[in-house]
């Protein structure tokens, strides 16, 4: 049976990301050794190239026929540098959580590569994959469902040591767990309690402690604070910032709250319908957005200041996000864009520094996938 997803595999829409230095390995031992190498601060630690994930849509019960695919992630590329926080924002259904799962190798990619220290983790298996997973950990959104209610906190945080016993010898585990509880600001005496005895913010701290247990280098945070109350959100954000400095972590911070993403991120990527729309430093994205979607997203954020609010001009998008099973031709945002022209329907805009800003060193010169990119300050008062 022909695989239809291979035939219409998207072309790389990000032509100007740097080449990846692929590590030469011939055996599993060499692979594991390469994964132990240190990465200098500021050097790329994770490089994603043209990553694709299509979920097949099938028809029929006995004889399954593929009738299409939900293009959840459709060719995205980015780099994560050591010690930095990369924020990924977008509406629900844009594929940001699928990206997280792909990076964790919880889903197999349809196409594309994820290089961790020069090795493509989508092709690894066995011991090498296990070593990768030790170094890339995740913090989940919902602290109420991501902790097993029948396990004590000590068991939850200590469970990673069962899988990776080389990190902590058996006799030492309880002490390690207590240290971790202390690090995330919980009383180490709570080690024998169950998750239901904790509040939402405390549970999220337990989730963070579990993520830290194996001394990972990268932590992927999928909406880590969106289930928490405002006053507790700030506590958890501050904790995450402190841990980043202390343990030299790199974060991928996925969220839909643009103010929080700005607060914690060094660079921000804006996703729309399985593609990156715009990537840049926090200043470039928030002060000089050039993609109309970013501008609309920023202008829609409710600002807790009624006076600034009245002076801002707001862009209210009409309609909903199109279905990722049948995305629009050309630019995916064109169905909701006020600038859309014929060119947008025919030609897919590449994620690149727009022609008109090329060579200039203004903050507007960052990657934006729009044919008609121009700066519009929507965050500050006009």
């Amino acid at each position, binding site marked *: 049976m022909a695989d239809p997803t291979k035939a219409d595999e998207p072309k790389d829409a990000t032509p100007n990301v740097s080449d990846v230095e692929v590590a030469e390995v011939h055996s599993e031992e060499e692979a594991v050794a390469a994964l132990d190498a240190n990465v200098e601060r500021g050097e790329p630690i994770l490089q994603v190239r043209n990553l694709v994930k299509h979920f097949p849509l099938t028809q029929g019960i006995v004889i399954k026929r593929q009738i299409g695919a939900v293009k959840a992630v459709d060719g995205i590329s980015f780099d994560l540098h050591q010690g930095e926080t990369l924020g990924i924002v977008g509406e629900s259904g844009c594929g940001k959580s699928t990206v997280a799962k792909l990076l964790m190798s919880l889903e197999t990619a349809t196409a594309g590569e994820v290089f961790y220290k020069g090795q493509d983790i989508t092709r690894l298996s066995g011991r090498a994959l296990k070593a990768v997973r030790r170094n890339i950990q995740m913090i989940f959104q919902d602290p109420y469902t991501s902790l097993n209610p029948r396990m004590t906190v000590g068991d939850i945080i200590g469970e990673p040591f069962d899988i990776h016993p080389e990190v902590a010898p058996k006799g030492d585990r309880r002490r390690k767990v207590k240290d971790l509880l202390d690090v995330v600001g919980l009383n180490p005496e709570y080690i024998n309690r169950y998750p239901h005895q904790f509040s939402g913010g405390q549970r999220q701290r337990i989730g963070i402690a579990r993520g830290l247990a194996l001394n990972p280098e990268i932590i992927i945070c999928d909406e880590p604070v969106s289930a928490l109350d405002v006053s507790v959100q700030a506590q958890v954000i501050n904790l995450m910032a402190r841990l980043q400095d202390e343990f030299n972590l790199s974060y991928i911070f996925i969220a839909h709250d643009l103010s929080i993403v700005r607060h914690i991120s060094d660079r921000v990527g804006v996703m729309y319908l399985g593609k990156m729309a715009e990537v840049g430093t926090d200043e470039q994205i928030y002060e000089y957005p050039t993609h109309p979607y970013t501008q609309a997203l920023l202008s829609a954020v409710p*600002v807790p200041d009624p006076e600034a609010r009245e002076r801002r001009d707001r862009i209210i998008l009409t309609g909903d996000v199109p279905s990722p099973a049948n995305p629009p031709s050309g630019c995916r945002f064109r169905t909701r864009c006020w600038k859309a022209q014929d060119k947008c329907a025919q030609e897919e805009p590449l994620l690149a520094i727009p022609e008109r800003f090329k060579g200039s060193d203004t903050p507007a010169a960052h990657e934006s996938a729009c044919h008609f990119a121009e700066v519009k300050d929507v965050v500050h008062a006009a």
Partner: protein
Amino acid sequence: MTIIDPTDAVPAQRPGDHENTGPLLEVRDLHVEFQTREGVVKAVNGVNYTVNSGETLAVLGESGSGKSVTAQAIMGILDMPPARIPQGEIRFYGKDMLTMGAEERRKLRGARIAMIFQDALSSLNPVLSVGFQLGEMFRVHQGMSRKAAKAKSIELMDRVKIPAAAARVNDYPHQFSGGMRQRIMIAMALALEPDLIIADEPTTALDVTVQAQVMDLLAELQREYRMGLILITHDLGVVADVADKIAVMYAGRIVETAPVHELYKRPAHPYTRGLLDSIPRLDQKGQELYAIKGLPPNLLKVPAGCAFNPRCDKAQDICRTEFPPLVPVTEADGTELPGRASACHFWKETIHG
């Protein structure tokens, strides 16, 4: 205890607002408690507020602050028992709803006071078409025929800007997107043109771009029908957009009330100030975020004195022993600030620096 209701004094009457003199809704010293195995949970401890027609009151608070329980008490949809209302009044056009008979309240509910819930997917019945559910309002309250009710539903779906309403009236809730479902909830609340709508976190489950659409629609319809609106939310940003006045709740009490602009400019309660400081700003990159220390109180044993004292930077001995009443807030020179009140022993220090 003396009852002070500073929200009463807000000059919220808009031009042309003369026909109704009394307030639309008046909540007076409302208490709600729940009997549980561990003891009595005091969810609401003496809440006072007033809503006039055409006015938006935002009730702001974290989870467990009692904001939703108050709303459910107004709607009369609390499960009793375990809930109990030991004291208080809820006056709708001057008439106390808590002393009304069940049948009389039923006539008000939906027709005169309607509610929009947070999660549209679980609030709509998945096995009935949205047209049927919308039409139910007309069939039950006005005894319309199925056909007439369906025609009305289409009209309503048009009002809340659902595209191709006539074609979609027979669709089921799962066939709509989150934003569209919330529009259907709004349409349902609006069906019988009520005097008061209570919206409990109407946009919390939605994306920012859709959130803006839905809030705009709600504000527009409110202006058009001149309804009173109680907007319950935890999002300081959403409130800033649409509210006329704000009541901040903490541990079952209102700790501060103010007209919307005033609250953001000069909070008069340390809790409000803490909340405002703890949200990151979109237009500037902050350093360390201010975080209110500790956790919201357990309602089984609310701290003595001011309920916020264990988390407050400014707490003194008096805060641990003496209960701070909600007192009117004035300028430093004693000039009255209409609509402002704070339940803090040190409101002067908090507002005037």
